[in-house]
């Protein structure tokens, strides 16, 4: 990301660097030792860095949302390579795994809040770094995706998942929780690319729908059309893995709106300022749903309204005490 593309932002941030850095440092020293309610108030002139992804459109959009969420008193500056040698205490918001790794490799002590990352990516770093690293997860929780499938296809009882061998373990908790929602599941292991379609065919024989996890080695632009059409030819729907794949023909996927990510990120930054450590990685509770009405019509599936689906999913999650904290 290169926020200096926006002259307004550059002008606003450039003149304030030195003084804000001191303020942040002072604030940090004050609030860290004790939990002081007074100190939880927004501090005038906070600073965060933003390490962007390689997609400038996404960076611009996130910058705008973060500015809105953090408020006008927080200054967002572009993260520059090498800057952590001078300032390793100001939190850095990293967009995506690459940005996170870039910052992390530069300085392992710098506090980083990773956005747009998966739980499997960030968990290891969180364990190592304690509270100085956290993340706002953006992939839809699998259990929420599965319930969405059940709401759309209420008669569904069997959920099939495709997984590479190294991912099986991470999907097992979801499979174990499906009975709470009147479903059962099975993971079909795809050991190599050549096994994808034969395994998919067996999975389609089992499942009422395919729950697609965000695993780009299985679901990617090269394979998705084939997977979807094979499923649809067998009258099976595919839920997930993300909103983009719904546009590609998947029937539905819940998603975390960027606004929600930005708002939760602002809360995390605030928490960090107050407590000196980030809360553990989490999903924003609010979510949206994308459905492909054309696909539903083609498959003769009567779709409930999006709001009804969301309400129904939320109810089921609440009934089992589930918070989307996978």
């Amino acid at each position, binding site marked *: 990301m290169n926020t200096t593309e926006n002259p307004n932002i550059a002008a606003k941030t450039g003149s304030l660097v030195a003084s804000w850095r001191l303020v942040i440092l002072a604030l940090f020293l004050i609030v860290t030792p004790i939990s002081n309610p007074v100190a939880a108030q927004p501090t005038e002139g906070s600073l965060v860095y933003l390490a962007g992804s390689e997609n400038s459109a*996404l960076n611009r959009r996130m910058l705008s949302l973060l500015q809105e969420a953090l408020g006008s008193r927080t200054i967002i500056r572009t993260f520059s390579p090498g800057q952590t040698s001078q300032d390793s205490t100001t939190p850095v918001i990293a967009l995506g795994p690459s940005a996170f790794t870039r910052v992390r490799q530069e300085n392992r002590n710098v506090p980083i809040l990773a956005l747009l990352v998966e739980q499997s990516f960030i968990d290891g770093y969180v364990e190592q770094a304690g509270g100085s690293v956290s993340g706002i997860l953006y992939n839809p929780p699998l259990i929420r995706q599965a319930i969405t499938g059940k709401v759309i296809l*209420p*008669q569904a009882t069997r959920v099939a998942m495709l997984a590479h061998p190294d991912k099986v373990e991470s999907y097992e908790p979801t499979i174990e929780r499906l009975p709470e929602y009147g479903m059962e599941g099975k993971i079909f292991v795809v050991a190599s690319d050549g096994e994808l379609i034969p395994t998919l065919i067996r999975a389609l024989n089992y499942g009422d729908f395919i729950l697609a996890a965000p695993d780009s080695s299985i679901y990617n*632009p090269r394979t998705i059309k*084939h997977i979807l059409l094979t499923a*649809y030819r067998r009258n099976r729907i595919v839920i997930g893995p993300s909103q983009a794949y719904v546009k590609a023909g998947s029937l539905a996927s819940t998603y975390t709106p960027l606004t929600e990510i930005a708002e939760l990120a602002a809360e995390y930054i605030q928490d960090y300022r107050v407590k000196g450590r980030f809360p553990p990685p989490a999903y924003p509770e609010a979510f949206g749903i*994308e459905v492909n009405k054309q696909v539903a019509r083609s498959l003769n599936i009567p779709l409930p309204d999006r709001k009804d689906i969301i309400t129904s999913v939320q109810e089921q999650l609440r009934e089992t005490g589930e918070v989307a904290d996978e």
Partner: protein
Amino acid sequence: MSVTNYPVKSPVFPGNDRLPSRPVVAILAGVLFTLPMASEAQEEDAGVYDLAALGNVPEAFNMDSSIPEVLTTTRLRQPKSRVPGTTTIITGDMIRDLGIMKLVEVFRLVPGMTVNAVGSNQPVTSYHGTVHYEQRRLQVLVDGRTSYRPNLSDMDWNSMPVPLDLIERIEISRGPNSAAYGINAFLGTINIITRPPEDTAGIELRGISGSRGYGRAFGSVGDTSETYKWRLAYEKRKSDGFDEQEDDGVIYPFHDGYDINTFNYDSNIALNNNYDLDLRAGVVDGVDEEDSRKNGKFGANEHPDIIVDDYYLQTRLNVTTSERHFYHVQASFQNYDRRQRWTVCIPQDQFIDILDPDVPTPDLRPCTPEDANPFLANLNEDIEESRLELEIQDTILFNPDLKLVSGLGYRKDTYRSETFFNGRGNNYQSRVFGNLEYSPFRWLTLNSGGNWEKTTTTDEGYFSPRLAANFILSNNHTLRFVYSRAVRTPDAFEQNPDWSYRPRNVAPPFDFLEGERVLVENLVDPTTSTFGKELEEERITSREISYFGQYYLDSSTLSLEVRYFNDQLRDMISGIINEEQWTIDNNVALDQEGFEVEASVDFPGTSLRVSYAYLDQDGRYTGADDRDAGDKQYAIDLLGRLSVRHSGSFAWIQDLPFDLTSSAAFYFADEFRRSHFERADFRLARRVFASGYSYELALTMQHYLDRDPTLSPDNTIKDHNQFFVEAGVRF
């Protein structure tokens, strides 16, 4: 159909006052079908962005995507809410879950279709009945190839090159469909769609054994890559047929089984992003047994079994020029080779009487060893038929609400038979077809289609139109009004028979008859014969009002489709075709009216499906007044042999613990000429999904509730419980 009477301004329909100023919206929708609403525009997800900016976001769903909507009815891909006519879809999974053992038996699940067997266990099926022999009023397609026999226009279900395990789905367009497929799509269209090779990658093996000598062995192997997808499949199917037959009150064994092998090769080659090529080929060989008591002619002293030796080649080039324009060019060649030869033995005294024109033909008695110098010769009903079919079909999606499919077709039917045609001949058909789907409002879809074709069997041209209006009452409720007309032209044998038998290998003392033609024209009853009379086309005018609705019930979904029809069938060809009588003529008018229901409800772990049809058929004789009342009524009755008043089915598929799945199905038809048909099937299967492979074991029982033969006294099954065991594995 009364479209204009519909309340166009009714406030019931949202958006009805919206002008069709949709091109811009539609084109945008063509790029991304799921345009977010304005209020949702801010709710974007990171998934719509590409974090690495490497183009790792999947392409948006294309308008021409191959989602299996209803394909058959108009040749456009249409959801049921937009299809101009009731269409039943039977999935391959349902066929297998219900333990259906023969392809033709699938059609008992279709409202209005009846299934039976004639002759030596020759399966027949029809929609809205009519005749039992010579099933000639349905268009049957397999992967786009016309699959009824070219010149006898009959269906040979036993030798269809379609393994049950390869069926993806069967679409049955109920009602005349000549507007899309031309002549023969008179009462309906059956479209059997096999699984594309990319959907069967891997290895699958299955074996089934059961009562009355039933056996089926299936194997397929295939692979898929970016550019080449292929499958080789083999199926062997055999059966001993019915248990016994009756002749003049005496029970005899019945030689009516079959033993058929099919080999299929299916492939798809992606030439580039816009071009791909389907290649298919198949071979069928085997024996279809015919019993000499049933089908033996002229004193046959052995069973005149039919040796089947068919093959087909098919290729189709699919071209996608843009998301909104694509076409295909298809060519197929099918060859049907049937060798049916038998020896005849007629005692000398009887044969001398036959040769004497002044002596009435005696009732033949079988030769005995005591008969000296009988007439001993070989006869045959060999026939080789082929069909060359070319088709170009072009689809333009102007926008999601305006779609046009159009095309050209050409067909050359060739026959070679010494017996039936005294040599070789051809018939040619050419046709132009098209269908326009237009949705001026969200609540209304109009379809207008037609087919013009010319055939050399009558040397005339015919236009078959269809008009339909679908009122989409809400997202999940559609009311259709359909008007259509169709024709069936007589086939080559009905129209131009040159039927004779030439005895071969004639033994002395009658060897002077070697190769002499014995004309059937001279054998048939001259008082009723219409042999050589030129026939006209049959015509049908059909009106349909149908409803399709889907409902969310508590944890289940219900689909309901109801069809009311009122059909007028005119100049129907009725009569007998055999070597003793030739009485066919355009001499019956039929009025058919009734309704049909198809409903399914899916609960968690439970699927229920029910179908019911009520058919009221009235016939009257419209031919020349040269017959007595009995013969006139007989002509009418012949067109009702497969027409039953009540028919239907019920199916229940239940998931059980321990990887078990059970199914129960009940089929009934009330009633055929002799009796009701009532059968209940039960199946229990255990399907285990292990790592890297899956296997299935199953037991199926067919229980005949009504033990009386239905259509003919020969349809005898001694044990009313029939059992089948099955094992399959997939890697």
